[in-house]
């Protein structure tokens, strides 16, 4: 490895990553050299240290998780710009900078603050994006996510996902479970539901206002739809036997669910408000884990009709199914990418459970995780990352991984054994 690269790109990157562990309770594991990454400089914004958590540390943690960026160490450059006119372009270029964000915090009217930021192309000296925001000081974390999204979009041309939310389940003890909602980086978590019985399979409605899930609070699995803002909820599938695996249709009007009222696990459709169920799958085997394709025309699902569990796809109205996975003898939890270009799922091989991503165009499936127990993959709404559940020290923990598997980040959420993460849609 060229010494220059190590000292000016990789070493600073590693140092900054370890710094961000302390700053944001995140562990970022970067696999691969990062030579294709976009080198961005994020010198401290003027007076950002007065805000809880600052701004640039949060922006950097967000951007690091995308696998797209490397970070220029500001300490290697003798220049502290907070306004565009103060940028010493040759100095930053000399440190390998491709783009540089500068910003500052000032006092606004009535206790508000103003945050101004600009992103510049270091070589062309052109402004790529930027804005001025007037916020309450305690909105600074949300604003950092917004700025990270703007930077991500300016550099990649893809929509950012740092303003989105995730949901997941914490097992606090054998008799205590909760359904949590948090920011996409794991921060700001709050409890939506607490129960003495298990909660599994949360699923965000397409508009992000509701969560469907399976609760065992009545001593059997029942599917609920829970309004996140009002807290009101109702059982939408509570038939004799088990009710589970809710999946929203893309228009939010109905759910595919798994019922056993006909004697074994089959896929049905119910209205999002409850009511009668219409059977969709028709086999003598287990059909479960339905997931609508992004366009709503098809349903992916897991079935053991050929022996071990494999992934199949059928029309959204039911009918004949085609097998999708052929390698391996245990492929479960199909999760179509929101843009329809890939399918994530979990494969068990040699006793290990790992997340795979299969590109629709090529049919090529690659492992994107590498421990012994990775499950419950869920795509970010831009399709570029996934959140999944893994295990450390016998407890469930959450990670995000880029679609190519190159960058993994552990999300540190408040205690307990965490499972079943699901990434919410873009805010509307």
């Amino acid at each position, binding site marked *: 490895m060229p010494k220059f690269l190590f000292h000016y790109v990789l070493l600073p990157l590693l140092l900054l990553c370890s710094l961000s562990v302390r700053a944001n309770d995140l562990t970022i594991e970067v696999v691969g050299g990062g030579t294709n990454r976009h080198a961005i400089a994020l010198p401290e914004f003027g007076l950002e240290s007065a805000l809880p958590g600052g701004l640039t540390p949060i922006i950097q943690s967000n951007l690091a998780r995308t696998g797209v960026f490397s970070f220029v160490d500001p300490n290697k450059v003798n220049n502290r710009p907070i306004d565009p006119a103060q940028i010493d372009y040759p100095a930053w270029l000399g440190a390998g900078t491709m783009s540089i964000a500068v910003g500052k915090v000032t006092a606004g009217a009535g206790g508000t603050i103003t945050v101004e930021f600009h992103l510049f192309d270091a070589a062309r000296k052109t402004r790529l994006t930027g804005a001025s925001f007037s916020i309450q*000081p305690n909105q600074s974390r949300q604003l950092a996510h917004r700025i990270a999204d703007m930077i991500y979009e300016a550099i990649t041309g893809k929509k950012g996902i740092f303003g989105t939310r995730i949901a997941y389940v914490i097992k606090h003890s054998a008799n205590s479970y909760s359904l949590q909602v948090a920011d996409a980086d794991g921060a700001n978590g709050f409890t939506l539901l607490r129960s003495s019985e298990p909660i599994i399979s949360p699923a965000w409605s397409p508009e992000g206002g509701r969560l469907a899930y399976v609760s065992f609070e009545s001593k059997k699995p029942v599917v609920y739809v829970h309004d996140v803002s009002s807290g009101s909820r109702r059982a939408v599938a509570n038939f004799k036997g088990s009710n589970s695996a809710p999946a929203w249709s893309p228009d939010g009007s109905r759910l595919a669910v798994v019922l056993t009222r006909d004697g074994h696990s089959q896929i049905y459709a119910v209205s999002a408000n409850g009511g009668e169920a219409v059977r969709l799958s028709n086999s003598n085997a*287990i059909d479960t884990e339905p997931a609508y394709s992004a366009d709503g025309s098809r349903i992916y699902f897991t079935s053991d009709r050929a022996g071990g569990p494999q992934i199949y796809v059928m029309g959204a109205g039911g009918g004949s199914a085609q097998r999708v996975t052929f390698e391996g003898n245990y492929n479960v939890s199909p999760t179509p990418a929101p843009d329809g270009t890939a399918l994530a799922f979990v494969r068990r091989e040699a006793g290990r459970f790992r997340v795979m991503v299969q590109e629709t165009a090529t049919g090529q499936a690659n492992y994107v995780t590498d421990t012994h127990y990775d499950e419950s993959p869920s795509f970010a709404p831009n399709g570029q990352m996934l959140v999944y559940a893994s295990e450390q020290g016998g407890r469930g923990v959450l990670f995000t991984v880029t679609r190519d598997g190159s960058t993994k980040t552990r999300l540190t959420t408040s205690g307990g054994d965490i499972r079943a993460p699901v990434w919410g849609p873009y805010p509307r």
Partner: protein
Amino acid sequence: MMWKKVLLAAMVAGSLAACSSPKGPTDPNAAGAAGMNGKNGANASGMYGQGGLNGSGNGMGADGSGNPLTDPKSVLSKRSVFFDFDSSLVKDEYKPLVQAHSEFLKKNQTRKVIIQGNTDVRGSSEYNLALGQRRAESVKSMMRVIGVPENQLEAVSYGKEKPRATGMGEADHAQNRRSDIVYDGE
């Protein structure tokens, strides 16, 4: 210099506000949901109260009332049917147990049972739920064949969610591959 003081004051106020309320005004939904949360919890416990699932296993003590369902000398106090790996077949050694409960149910047609299937703790939650269902249905089918009416039986699954044994050894897994027979009111 004045604006600096103003800014500092704003910052301090902001920090304090942030401390006292982790949910910023950017997220009114969060505060609302957190407020509702306690209510949901209360509803849940109020509606369902004491379930008694925990008492559903083997070895329930005699209650002195001569209730055969809880008398350890009665086969009816045995409630668990264990299965082989990757199997939902009721093994011969558990057939007398299923037979005894079936006869009890035929004689006591106001009693109902819920049969809860369980699996190992590894693998997809939902696929395991379906596998556990198969084990519950297997016991239910046998009871139906023996002549227990459908309306006295319900087969459900806990999948891997409520393991009796939490270890990773084969003995632990074997403990978890089972169906439990739970009577109404237990």
